[in-house]
Each structure stands twice: as structure tokens, then as C-alpha cells.
């Protein structure tokens, strides 16, 4: 770009002042000419009018009356009243006339021109002699200027006329002339305006031409600067102007280039920031302590639905409603006080939609002024997922509860089945138990009859027999009591002596075991002894566990029965000799706070392939009709679910071993130990 030599501000001022002075002088001159001309015209008219009044008024009236006299003569002569009335009315319209009367030759009024004709017959006051010599007489009266005139010729008088003017004709004339002068003045003013406007237009034209020539030198560089500005506005920040002079224009060009360098840097930086803010996935905001927005991204306008102008005048709290408004207000305060805060709230859009957002707020100090800068992320999906999860959890809990309930009912059913099975077993056991005392009772009774036959039935003999009988009956009665206790349901957990509980089971099964040639042993590390016979094991125990005693006994019963069946089956299958003694060992021990009850047999053990399944419900290896498959399953449920213990199986030397692990009731045990 080329900068031409400039014209200074001083020259411009001189030229502009000179032009203005010429314009003012021209307009003033035109105004003076018009003003003086209009004044002269007005003065001249007034002088003329006054002259008429003072010099020729009487003559004028005389001429007027004279004219009227002749006009009326023919009409009055012919007595054409219609046309006389018409003439009178015409005169009324053209002159400030109060009344006009036409009278006959005797001075008697014929008509005043109106339909009512109220003047008819009135005698006019006329100086008949005087009017002969002077046919028009003018006099001033209270009601106005009165003009009386004779209608006729020198030889014949047709009648008389009387006119009373309601207003001084001069005044009316002057008024009319004033109006005329006003119109002329308006005309002159209009002319003046035209002249002034024309002069101004000519001067403006000259100034325009001069201005074009002048501005070409002055505004050329400015224009180029403007062009440069446009290019910059269109985004071309690299554009620069050349500096070729050392005057004000040159200085301006240099300053412009410097400014452009700075502007480029600022613009690039600002554009980058703007792009960065607009590229943020959520909303961005920057506002001062008074809540006035200074910066925000496009997302805020798009999501909220508010225009930039609306956001400009909004407070941050206006984006929230209800409880969220208080939360946000608190968090903003917190951010301003502590430097940082976050909040989850629903952003209320212009069309009243509510979108859950996670907001951050960071205090940002510029000078001494605190600002808050932050972003908001749409957490609609997260919230939805959370809600769904909550719903799922609720459903899941219900399903679990439902399942547990089903399971519980199933277990109850199984327990019931198991109990029935156990009862069957127990009835068998009772039958075995009762067989021996029944036999004994039978022998005693038979012996009494024999004694009676042989004369040996003494009182002593009877007492002994009764005692023996009662012992057998007590045994049987105890068996029944054990059986009943065994099946009595317990509602609450309570501490019980594991050893005694096992002894009861063994005592109930002892008949069966013996019948099947199965020996049993109960060992207890606490006693450091082994119990082989039923009477021996009815001893007070000292191993106390917590739980449901009867259920525990049922579990033990199941395991012992299982061992018994395994031994019988092993004999049948030849895994052990048919006469080989079966052995079931029950060991009760304690370790720390746990009680361990191990029940082992010598039936050869559990095949490894079914080891995993032995506790499954309805799993059995027994022949059809001999096993239900719920005994071990129920035992595991009882021990693990109801008594918080463990039941597991393993193969040992000659057979299988089932271990029940329960919590030791230390308190009870201690109390007992102290005794």
C-alpha cells in the first residue's frame, strides 16, 4: 500500500470555516433582501388604504349609492319585488350591511329583502328636500354608517333606498388587506426559503466538488486503512499497510501495524480459548460475584434454550428450580469462600425441561475481583443407570427373598420328609429296643405262672418279679420319651451338650446296630475315654454347642443310619466279610471355640466320583425303596444353615468320615467346668 503526502488538520479547518462563513453571509443577505422587500410592500399598502379612507371614502360611497340607484330604478318602477329582493340579498352577501330597505316614493318601506319583510310599511326618515339636491346622503348613526339615496331620475322619483353598514367599511378593507399582506409575506418567505435553499445547494455543490478533490488526498490513505481493516475483519490478520511518510498518516499507519501485531496475537489466543470452551462436552460458565455472566459456551445456549442476550441478563440461580436452587446457591457461596465446589442439580431449561448435571465451580481471581469459572456435565445417563440399578436391586431383593422363601418352604418340606423318614427309622429302632424288654417281661410273666404252679410264688418272689418288670417298663417308657423329645420341634437356639445328644441317638439306635452286628464307639477327648456300651455313655457331657438340639440329633441320626446302611451294603456287595463286624465311631472333640463331631465307619468309603454329590438332594446310591436321598442333604442344611456350622465328608482308612463342626458355647462350658 502506498501512502500519499497528507494534508494537515489545520488546512482542513481553515477551508471548512471559510466555506461556512460564505454560506452564512449568502443566507443573511438573502434574508435581508426579502425582509426589506416585504416590509416595503406592506407599508405601501397600508398608506394607500389610509389614503382611500381619508380622501376618497365619501366619493366611493357616493359612487356605490349612485350605482345602486340606477340598478334599483327599473325594478322599482316595474314593482318587480322578487328581483329587488334578490338584489338586496346579493348586496348583503358582498358588503358589511346591517339592513337595506327599499321604499316607495313616499318613503314607505316596501321591502327589506327578507320573506318576513318586517320593515314593510315603516316610514323612512328622509330629508326629502335635501335629497333632491344631494341624491346620496351619508351620516353616522349609533347603529352604524347610514346611507340614504334617491331611486329615480331628475324627473321621476320611484322611491328611496336606505343602507345601514354594520361595520366601518375601512376596517373590513384593512382587515382584508392585512390578510393580503400576510399572504404576500408568506409568499415572500417561501421565496426566500427557495432562494436560501438554492444558494445552499449551489454552495453545497461547490463544497462537495472541492471536498471530493480535497478528500481524495486526505481520505485516500484512510480509505486504504479502511480496506485493510475490512480484510482483517474477514480474518486476514496478516495484512499490513506500508509506512512511507513521516507525518500523521504515516504515524497512523505505523500504529495500525503495531496494533495489528498485538491484535493478531490476542485474536489467535481468544479464538483458541473460544474454540476450546465451545468444544467442551458440557456447559461452560464464567460469572462474577454478583452472578453476572461474563462468558459461556455455545452448549449453554443450545441446552438451556436461552439466547446469548437472555443469558447476559440472567443470574446463575435462574437456571435452577426448587430445592436445587438452594443447593446451587450454597455451592456457589462455598466455591467463592473455599475456592472450589461441586454440585449435582437439575438444570431447568427455558422450555422447563430438567436435565441432571454435575457442576464444578472454581474461584478465579482477576485483580481483586473474584469470579467463578466452571463446567457442567450432563449426567442423565448415569442417573438413569443408577435409577435402573436401584430398581434392579429392589427387584433382585424381592426375587432373592422370593427364592429364599421358596427354598425355605422347600427345605421345610424336605425337613418334614426327612423327619418322617427318621420317624420310620426310629420306629424300627424302637421296635428293636422294645424287643429285648418285651421278651424279658414275657419271661417274668411266664415265670410267675410257673412259680404259682410250683408253689414258689412268695411275697418276696412277687416283689422281685414286679421290680424286674418295672425296670423293663421304665426302659421302654424312656425309649418312648426319647423318641418324643427327638421329634419335638424347637423354636429357639439354645446350648446343649453334644455328647449327651449323641448318646441319646446312639441309645435309640443301639438295638438296630446290635441286630446288624455293628459295634459303635463314642470317644471324647474331653473325657479322654471311649464309650462302648449304652449304659456307659449315659453320662453328663461337657461339650456344649449352641443350636437346635433335636435337629442336631436328627443330623447325627441320619449320618449314623447312613453309616449303618453303608456297612450292610458293603457286606452284601462283599466289600467286607459277611460276618465282619461293622464299626461306627463317634468322636467328639474341641479345638478353640469349635466343637468337632466325627462319625466314621468301616464300610470302605465313598467313591470319589460321587463325593461331590453326596449332599445333593435326592441323590442316593441305595436300592429303590431303601433311600430317599434327602438324609445327608437335610443334615447339611441343618448344620450349615440352621446352626451356622459345617458338615463335610471325607474318606479315611477303612471307610468314610462325616464331620460336624459347631460353635462351642464357652460360657456354658465354663460355668459347667467350674462345677
Amino acid at each position, binding site marked *: 500500500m502506498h501512502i500519499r503526502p497528507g494534508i494537515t488538520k489545520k488546512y482542513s479547518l481553515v477551508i471548512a470555516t471559510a466555506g461556512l462563513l460564505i454560506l452564512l453571509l449568502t443566507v443573511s443577505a438573502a434574508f435581508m433582501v426579502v425582509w426589506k422587500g416585504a416590509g416595503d410592500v406592506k407599508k405601501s399598502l397600508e398608506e394607500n388604504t389610509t389614503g382611500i379612507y381619508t380622501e376618497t371614502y365619501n366619493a366611493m360611497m357616493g359612487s356605490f349609492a349612485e350605482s345602486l340607484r340606477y340598478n334599483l330604478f327599473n325594478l322599482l318602477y316595474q*314593482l*318587480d*319585488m*322578487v328581483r329587488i329582493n334578490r338584489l338586496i340579498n346579493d348586496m348583503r352577501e358582498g358588503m358589511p350591511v346591517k339592513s337595506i330597505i327599499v321604499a*316607495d316614493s313616499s318613503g314607505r318601506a*316596501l321591502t327589506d329583502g327578507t320573506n318576513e*319583510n*318586517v320593515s*314593510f*310599511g315603516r316610514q323612512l326618515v328622509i330629508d326629502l328636500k335635501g335629497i333632491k339636491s344631494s341624491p346620496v346622503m351619508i351620516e353616522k348613526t349609533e347603529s352604524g354608517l347610514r346611507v340614504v339615496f334617491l331611486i329615480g331620475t331628475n324627473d321621476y322619483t320611484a322611491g328611496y333606498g336606505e343602507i345601514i353598514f354594520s361595520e366601518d367599511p375601512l376596517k373590513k378593507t384593512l382587515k382584508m388587506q392585512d390578510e393580503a399582506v400576510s399572504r404576500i409575506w408568506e409568499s415572500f418567505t417561501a421565496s426566500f426559503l427557495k432562494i436560501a435553499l438554492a444558494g445552499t445547494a449551489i454552495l453545497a455543490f461547490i463544497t462537495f466538488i472541492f471536498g471530493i478533490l480535497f478528500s481524495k488526498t486526505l481520505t485516500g490513505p484512510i480509505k486504504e486503512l479502511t480496506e485493510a481493516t475490512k480484510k482483517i475483519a474477514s480474518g486476514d490478520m496478516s495484512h499490513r499497510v506500508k509506512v512511507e511518510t513521516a507525518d500523521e498518516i504515516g504515524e497512523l499507519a505505523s500504529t495500525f501495524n503495531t496494533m495489528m501485531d498485538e491484535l493478531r496475537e490476542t485474536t489467535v489466543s481468544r479464538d483458541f480459548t473460544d474454540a476450546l470452551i465451545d468444544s467442551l462436552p458440557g456447559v461452560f460458565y464464567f460469572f462474577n460475584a454478583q452472578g453476572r455472566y461474563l462468558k459461556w459456551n455455545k452448549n449453554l445456549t443450545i441446552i438451556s434454550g436461552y439466547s446469548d442476550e437472555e443469558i447476559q441478563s440472567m443470574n446463575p440461580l435462574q437456571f435452577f428450580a426448587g430445592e436445587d436452587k438452594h443447593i446451587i446457591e450454597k455451592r456457589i457461596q462455598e466455591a467463592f469462600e473455599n475456592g472450589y465446589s461441586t454440585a449435582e442439580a437439575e438444570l431447568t431449561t427455558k422450555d422447563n425441561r430438567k436435565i441432571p448435571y454435575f457442576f464444578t465451580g472454581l474461584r478465579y481471581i482477576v485483580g481483586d475481583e473474584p469470579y467463578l469459572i466452571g463446567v457442567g456435565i450432563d449426567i442423565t445417563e448415569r442417573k438413569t443407570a443408577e435409577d435402573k440399578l436401584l430398581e434392579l436391586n429392589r427387584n433382585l431383593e424381592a426375587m432373592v427373598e422370593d427364592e429364599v422363601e421358596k427354598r425355605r418352604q422347600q427345605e421345610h418340606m424336605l425337613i418334614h420328609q426327612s423327619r418322617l423318614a427318621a420317624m420310620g427309622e426310629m420306629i424300627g429302632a424302637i421296635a428293636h429296643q422294645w424287643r429285648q424288654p418285651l421278651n424279658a417281661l414275657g419271661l417274668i410273666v411266664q415265670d410267675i405262672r410257673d412259680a404259682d404252679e410250683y408253689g414258689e410264688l412268695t411275697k418276696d418272689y412277687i416283689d422281685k418279679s414286679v421290680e424286674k418288670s418295672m425296670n423293663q417298663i421304665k426302659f421302654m417308657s424312656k425309649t418312648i420319651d426319647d423318641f418324643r423329645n427327638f421329634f419335638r420341634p424347637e423354636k429357639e437356639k439354645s446350648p446343649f451338650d453334644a455328647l449327651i445328644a449323641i448318646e441319646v441317638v446312639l441309645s435309640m439306635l443301639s438295638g438296630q446296630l446290635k441286630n446288624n452286628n455293628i459295634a459303635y464307639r463314642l470317644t471324647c477327648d474331653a473325657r479322654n475315654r471311649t464309650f462302648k456300651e449304652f449304659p456307659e455313655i449315659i453320662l453328663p457331657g461337657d461339650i456344649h454347642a449352641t443350636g437346635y438340639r433335636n435337629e442336631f440329633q436328627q443330623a447325627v441320626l441320619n449320618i449314623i443310619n447312613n453309616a449303618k446302611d453303608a456297612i450292610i451294603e458293603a457286606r452284601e456287595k462283599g466289600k467286607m466279610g459277611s460276618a465282619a463286624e461293622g464299626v461306627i465311631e463317634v468322636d467328639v472333640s474341641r479345638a478353640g471355640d469349635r466343637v468337632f463331631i466325627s462319625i466314621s465307619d468301616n464300610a470302605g468309603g465313598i467313591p470319589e466320583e460321587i463325593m461331590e454329590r453326596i449332599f445333593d438332594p435326592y441323590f442316593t446310591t441305595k436300592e429303590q425303596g431303601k433311600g430317599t436321598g434327602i438324609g445327608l442333604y437335610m443334615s447339611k442344611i441343618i448344620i450349615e444353615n440352621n446352626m451356622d456350622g459345617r458338615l463335610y465328608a471325607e474318606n479315611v482308612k477303612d471307610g468314610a468320615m462325616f464331620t460336624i463342626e459347631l460353635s462351642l458355647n464357652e460360657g456354658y462350658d465354663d460355668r459347667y467346668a467350674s462345677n
Partner: protein
Amino acid sequence: MIMRAAIKFFLIFALTLYVLPAFGGERELRLGLISDNPDSRIREYMPLMKNVAARLKEFNIKDARIVVAKDVDEMLKKIERGEVDIIFESAFSTIEMQEKAGIMPTMLVWRKGVREYRTVFFVRRESPIKSLSDLKGKTIVFEDQKSTSAYAMPKAELKRRGLTVLPLNEKREIKDAVRYIFTGEELNQAFFVVQKRADAGAFNNNDWDETSEKVRADLRIIHETEPMPRYMASFHPALPEKLRKAIKNIFEELHKTPEGKEILKKASRITKIERLTDADLKALKYLKELMEFIE
């Protein structure tokens, strides 16, 4: 005279027989007027006749037409040719057309609020003249030769009473004749009497009422003629009776509605149209007598 009337009636009767079939098809309702300004009359009366025609569709009337004749003679020809159905005219002309063409005066037409008028004869208050017979050898002032109430009627009335009525300068040897002059305007008539240019004047009672009270105070009425309908509506004799009746009914009702009033007013400022009363028929009889004395 009777013979001539009989011939006329015969001609009209024959014409009626000729015209009647035309009523079988659609036709126009035609109003006859006498004027030297047809353009104005047509514009004034057309709304009235269109309104009437529109209500007569059941008689196959499809439209209306105004037929203007320049004088009574021309109108008589139109009547004879069956070119008009209704005729609006002054009482004198109506009677003339009734005599000559057999039209049927049926209704009385109010104009400018006036139902009827009569001619008043007046003299100066202090005049010795007391009655019409006192006018022998005196001068009377009329308006002009076209005037009915201020020339034809008073002149006929004077003649009916046996007086000779002559212009001022005609047959001066007849001394007892009532001499007349014209002033062109009613107002001038009054002033001619007041200013003793004439001994008497005659114009209609409405003009008398419009004369200034002060002037009337100088005058005195010596005679009034019988009343004469202001304006009349007559039917062509060939018009069917049912149609006549229907038209009469329409005419009678017109002034009772604002629209009817407006179209009547436009037609030469008609106020209303009503049926002739017995008094009107009597007046017509008087006018017929008077007609004998009209040249």
C-alpha cells in the same frame, strides 16, 4: 260534445280489446307525466315506479318505464295508443284527459306537504270592493298565463259568475269587463295591489300564507274558490281492475315506510298518495264546471 266523447270511449274500448292480450306476457308498468324536462322527470320518478313494479310480479310486470309528454295533447295521444298505464297530473289536466281520453282519476297526490289548494281573491284593505261582482271595470293582477291557480282558475271562476274578463288593453269599449294584467310572480301581485297598480289579485292560498304578515295586513280576501286537489293519479281505462287495485294498495302504503317516503320525496317531493274522498269528488265536479269556462 257528447258525441265526441262517445267516439273517444269507443276508440278506447277497441284499443283495450287490442291491448288486453298483451297482458298475457311480461310487460312494463308505464307512468305518464307532462313536462318539458323529460330527463329530470325520468330520474325523479323511476325509483318510485321500479319499487311499485317489483311488487307486481304476479301480474307479469317485469319492469317500469316513465313516459313523458310535452303537453296534454301529446299525452292524450299516448293514452289513445295505450302507451301509459298511470298518469300523474294536476287536477285541471286530469279532468281534461278524463273528458277526452277516459282516464280514471283515482288517487290524490300530496306534493310538498300540500293536499289541496284554492284560489284566493284579494284587494287592498281599505278598498270598497267586497265581492267578485264588484270587480266589474276593475283591474285584477294574475301571475302568468301558465298558472292554474293564479290565472286559469280565477279567470274561469270570474267567468262562471258571468263576468267578462279581458286583458287590460283589449276591447276597451267593454267598460264592465274585468281587466287583467300579469306580474310574473305571486309576490309582485301582492305589491301591485298594495301600491295601487291593480285593484285586486288572485293566487292560491299557499302563496297567501307565504306572503309577509305585514303585507297581508294591508290586504283583504274577498273570495275563495272550492278546493282543488294538488296533484292526481289516474289509471288508463284498459288497466285490469285487479292490477289497478294492487297498484292502489301499493301507493297507499308507500309513505308508511322510510324507504317509501324517500322514493316519494324524490318524485317531485310527493308526500303521500291517498284515495279520493267524497269531498274530493265534489271538488272535481266543481272543477269540471269550471273547465267549461276555460279557453
